[in-house]
């Protein structure tokens, strides 16, 4: 059993597990942080961004003024933003049988894996994961296609040129594997390969392995996966949460008794408490609004935003700011809000019970009805005429490199009245802001990451006790910025097996058994004999049938006796068919009872001679020698075949067959 690690990113994993005869990909996260090296894509013509000077090396030897622009004291790539893909060279992607998706954030690289790679397998995901994952992909594609770039920068990626570039561009690794965004065509084709599964559904793969998703508590439809056979169990934990937010709580007990637990997707901000962050968010929000400024919240279109809207709704009312309009701007804003209301089965108890009334599970339905929350596909169209200030705008993309958020940065960045509040933990906010400096707008960093922290995970692992833990390397050491915080790492016995991008780990498994079925007729024919107290054995002769990795033992069917043919009279001279092996014998033949048995069978004259290992019996009338020893019996009989077989059967009476 092996694990191929195609991504080293702890929260955007992409691993491939070879288990029995199956090849299973676990998630395919897409690292979008690569886009931070690119210039933002403005929706509206930006005089500032269009007049940036091109970059030429100091000695003038390298001239990349078309590809690289100097902006806010740094050099950015002027091209459509690109993403860092999972490793595609480590193994042949066409050999992958199935892909298991744990949540919608971890499937964004799917089209790169399933399209144009020869992939013919199946992707398994829950319905909310598929639907919201589709929305996020659609959004990404829309963000890119709305602002087409005429040129694609490629020269800077040349290894010889890259090392001459200023930091941080010269230090970026794997730039050759960076790719532009996929198309809607590829998204649709990739998603058509998804097969829906429900929590605790058991899915058989080729009869060899069973996989099953479990609620992970992190987002709508998010799951951990159990991959098991009858004897081995691998748990894949990815993006799990124990906080009470909107999703169904995490199923922890089903992870018990794992041989191997692959642990990914812990919180990226282990030092920040989500509740504290929310409080800070609210106080900054009310301060800004009261001062007449606007609040910009760069965020994903699904996930924490549902909880944010719910909390803010209550907070704004209590803070007497109930009339401040909320705007949610995204090509998929409407769909995301609508979809969130129809997945009652995947929500926490509290929200689930609302549907029974019947009421929508999330209060944003009411916000929309009362016009407190308005959603628009983009800043163009109705929004530009309807929006009033001060207001709160939720919009993407949190990288600040593309999407409607770019426009608001240009629009509001110059005023110190406005505030940008970062809630998504995926991007360094300073990096994200780099091309907009200098900024007058206030910047607040309130990352809300509900995923497990180190304290929670060590408690969880104590509870479920996996034999071995596999995790990304960063989890095995304290954060680089806080080397003394040994509480922010995994300390386990035995030590976790760490992986990085391109690692291939051999997982410590010794498979010893496989499930087989005995047909009832066979089972009935077996004769059990007790060898020791509580231990019985039976010899089994059977025919093995293996199909689709399922094994069945059937009784041996004796071939019908061949009718005696007239041509061949010397039937007896035919050698016996190649016969089945005989059972092994065990036990011993005790002297006195054996002699008694011989006597009973008419053999009277027996001369017994003691030897070092046992006895030699001389059957004088028959001229037969029988050597009886602890480990064996030897019958020497020359002439009388029927006598020999009779003696054989008498000896066998004392022995056990195995």
């Amino acid at each position, binding site marked *: 059993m092996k694990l191929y690690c195609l991504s080293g990113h702890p929260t955007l994993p992409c691993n491939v597990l070879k288990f029995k005869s199956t090849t299973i990909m676990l998630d395919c996260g897409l690292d979008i942080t690569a886009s931070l090296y690119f210039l933002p894509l403005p929706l509206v013509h930006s005089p500032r961004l269009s007049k940036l000077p091109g970059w030429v090396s100091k000695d003038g030897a390298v001239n990349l003024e078309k590809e690289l622009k100097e902006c806010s004291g740094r050099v950015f790539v002027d091209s459509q933003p690109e993403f860092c893909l999972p490793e595609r060279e480590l193994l042949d992607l066409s050999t992958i049988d199935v892909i298991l998706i744990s949540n919608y954030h971890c499937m964004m690289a799917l089209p790169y894996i399933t399209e144009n790679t020869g992939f013919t397998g199946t992707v398994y995901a829950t319905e909310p994961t598929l639907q919201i994952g589709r929305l996020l992909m659609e959004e990404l594609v829309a963000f890119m296609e709305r602002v087409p770039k005429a040129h694609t920068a490629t020269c800077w990626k040349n290894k010889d040129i890259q090392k001459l570039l200023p930091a941080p561009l010269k230090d970026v690794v794997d730039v050759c594997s960076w790719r532009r965004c996929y198309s809607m065509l590829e998204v649709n084709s990739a998603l058509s390969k998804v097969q829906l599964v429900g929590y605790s559904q058991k899915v058989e793969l080729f009869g060899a392995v069973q996989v099953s998703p479990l609620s992970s508590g992190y987002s709508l439809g998010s799951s951990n996966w159990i991959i098991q056979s009858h004897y081995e169990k691998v748990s894949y934990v990815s993006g799990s949460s124990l906080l009470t937010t909107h999703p169904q709580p995490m199923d922890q007990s089903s992870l018990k008794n794992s041989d191997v637990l692959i642990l990914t997707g812990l919180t990226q901000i282990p030092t920040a408490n989500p509740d504290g962050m929310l409080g800070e968010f609210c106080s900054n929000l009310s301060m800004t609004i009261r001062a007449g400024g606007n609040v910009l919240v760069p965020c994903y279109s699904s996930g924490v935003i549902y909880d944010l809207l719910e909390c803010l709704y209550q907070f704004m009312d209590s803070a007497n700011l109930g009339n401040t309009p909320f705007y949610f701007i995204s090509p998929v804003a*409407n769909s995301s809000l609508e979809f969130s209301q*129809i997945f*009652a089965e995947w929500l926490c108890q509290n929200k689930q019970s609302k549907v029974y009334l019947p009421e929508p599970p999330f209060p944003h339905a009411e916000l929309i009805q009362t016009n407190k929350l308005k959603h628009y596909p983009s800043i163009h169209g109705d929004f530009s005429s309807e929006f009033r200030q001060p207001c709160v705008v939720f919009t993407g993309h949190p990288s600040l490199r593309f999407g409607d958020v770019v426009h608001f940065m240009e629009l509001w960045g110059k005023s110190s009245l406005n505030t940008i509040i970062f809630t998504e933990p995926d991007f360094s906010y300073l990096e994200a802001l780099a091309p907009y400096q200098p900024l007058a707008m206030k910047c607040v960093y309130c990352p809300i990451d509900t995923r497990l922290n180190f304290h929670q995970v060590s408690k969880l692992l104590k509870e479920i006790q996996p034999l071995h833990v596999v995790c990304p390397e960063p989890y095995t050491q304290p954060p680089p910025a806080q080397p003394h915080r040994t509480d922010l790492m995994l300390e386990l016995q035995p030590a976790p097996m760490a992986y990085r991008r391109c690692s291939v780990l051999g997982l410590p498994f010794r498979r010893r058994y496989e499930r087989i079925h005995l047909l009832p007729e066979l089972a009935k024919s077996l004769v059990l004999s007790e060898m020791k107290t509580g231990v019985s*054995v039976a010899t089994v002769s059977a025919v*093995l049938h293996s199909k689709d990795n399922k094994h069945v033992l059937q009784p041996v069917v004796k071939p019908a006796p061949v009718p005696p043919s007239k041509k061949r009279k010397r039937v007896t001279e035919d050698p016996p068919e190649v016969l089945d092996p005989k059972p092994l014998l*065990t036990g011993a033949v005790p002297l006195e009872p054996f002699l008694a048995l011989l006597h009973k069978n008419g053999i009277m004259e027996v001369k017994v001679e003691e030897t070092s290992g046992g006895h030699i019996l001389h059957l004088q009338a028959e001229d037969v020698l029988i050597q009886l020893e602890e480990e064996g019996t*030897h019958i020497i009989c020359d002439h009388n075949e029927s006598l020999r077989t009779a003696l054989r059967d008498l000896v066998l009476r004392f022995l056990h067959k195995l």
Partner: protein
Amino acid sequence: MPEIKVTPLGAGQDVGRSCILVSIGGKNIMLDCGMHMGYNDDRRFPDFSYITQNGRLTEFLDCVIISHFHLDHCGALPYMSEMVGYDGPIYMTHPTKAICPILLEDFRKITVDKKGETNFFTAQMIKDCMKKVVPLNLHQTVQVDEELEIKAYYAGHVLGAAMVQIKVGLESVVYTGDYNMTPDRHLGAAWIDKCRPDILISESTYATTIRDSKRCRERDFLKKVHETVERGGKVLIPVFALGRAQELCILLETFWERMNLKAPIYFSTGLTEKANNYYKLFITWTNQKIRKTFVQRNMFEFKHIKAFDRSYADNPGPMVVFATPGMLHAGQSLHIFKKWAGNEKNMVIMPGYCVQGTVGHKILNGQKKLEMEGRSTLDVKLQVEYMSFSAHADAKGIMQLIRMAEPRNMLLVHGEAKKMEFLKDKIEQEFNISCFMPANGETTTIVTNPNVPVDISLNLLKREMALGGPLPDSKRPRTMRGTLIMKDNSLRLVSPEQALKELGLSEHQLRFTCRVQLHDSHSDSETLGRIYTYLKSALKNYGVQHLPDGTVIVESIVIKVTSSPEEPNLKVILLSWSYQDEELGSFLSTLLKKGLPS
């Protein structure tokens, strides 16, 4: 011998009060707990005294599963759990859990408040009963206890309807509830995987019907409604608030829109909006098309269909009214029916099945005079139409489901005996499986004979698969030998050698030696050479070897030749073999005793 027992307490050769007991692997499960619309006395509910004469049912049942929210499948639930007494888990899907208490409360109100019956379950009992409900998700494997697991499949029929698979070890039963094998305007088609249950318990409402295409039925329905409205008549469509009603509303809504019709369409009960809300929130349970487009246009927001008020019934001019309940046995639909029955311009369209004893059943049978309460009679002059819109599988659909699930036995419920008989013959002929149709209180027992699961050592399995080759030779199947060890309730199959080792036993060698004398004038080694040549040709399928140390080996049998210097032509052939080669050793000694061929 393991067996599965199935006893219908209701719906055995009958439609109504579905309630089926299943005993499987020592577990007892109640499937559905419905009431009978055709009775007002004790026969209304299943006879739970069959399970136990005195006391509560909790200790006799491991779980109760409700397939969908129709009252003939869940109407007796509060009676069973609160009045007879059952505290174990009750499983149903989320939509069923949401809608079922509303229908139960409706039913209770009609029975107690309108008809003044006492000794009936109360509103509080419905609430207490619903607290025992555990929601089921589709395809989720729910572990009721260590051994018993259940899994729900999509059944179509109504929102949230499910088929359930019940499994204990290797034995399983599938119960279909009511299902529909063709997608309709708001629901998808039932689906199940090839789960090969020991018994498939199927409804058989339309056992003998093969319905024409849905499209024709819809066209017919629209034509009849249209014609009646055109000539100024009123159309009454008795429905249940949830289910068919939504499908027909979608149908009329789109037709009104397309034809630009003006006649009002009303929906009778206060449930309308609420009902439609359920559909909106449980949109994942509707069909593909509605789910795909719900963000742009929610199919359950109707423009042309408005809420009905009692007073509208006397308004002049054409109108279409959807009114509950669907079998005209009580409530608003019956009230409107009485008002409109006298006018031949009007029409009543019965879109579903009506059980015996209801007004719906009577008028469908052509009865023109109805006896009403208080000895009055009602003349039925309006046109009576029956449109089979109720979403049950027809004969073709039932056969299709059998093909999907591949059951070993079939058991029919929820249908009329005569029709079942016909279908039973058909199933037995076409699929060559036994088909049962027990009456209420009658038990069907099926012997299951399951395989016995065993842990085989991987070494043994791999060795065997390598020896046997990829494809077994059916003419000469290889026999595998192993030792089954039973210890602490585990069954393991290992090689005999491993078994010896594990049990701490040593092997007992049983050997045989046989000396055969023959005359041969050659030297010893030449004689051995002749033996080798002879055996090589005689034993084609065996490994025969001539070793340089002066022995011939056949499999593990050792053959040597000696002679004494006194009589060099009298050779003694020494054969020695172990018990493992007994047959071959015996054969060889007999063969060599006959001498060598010259």
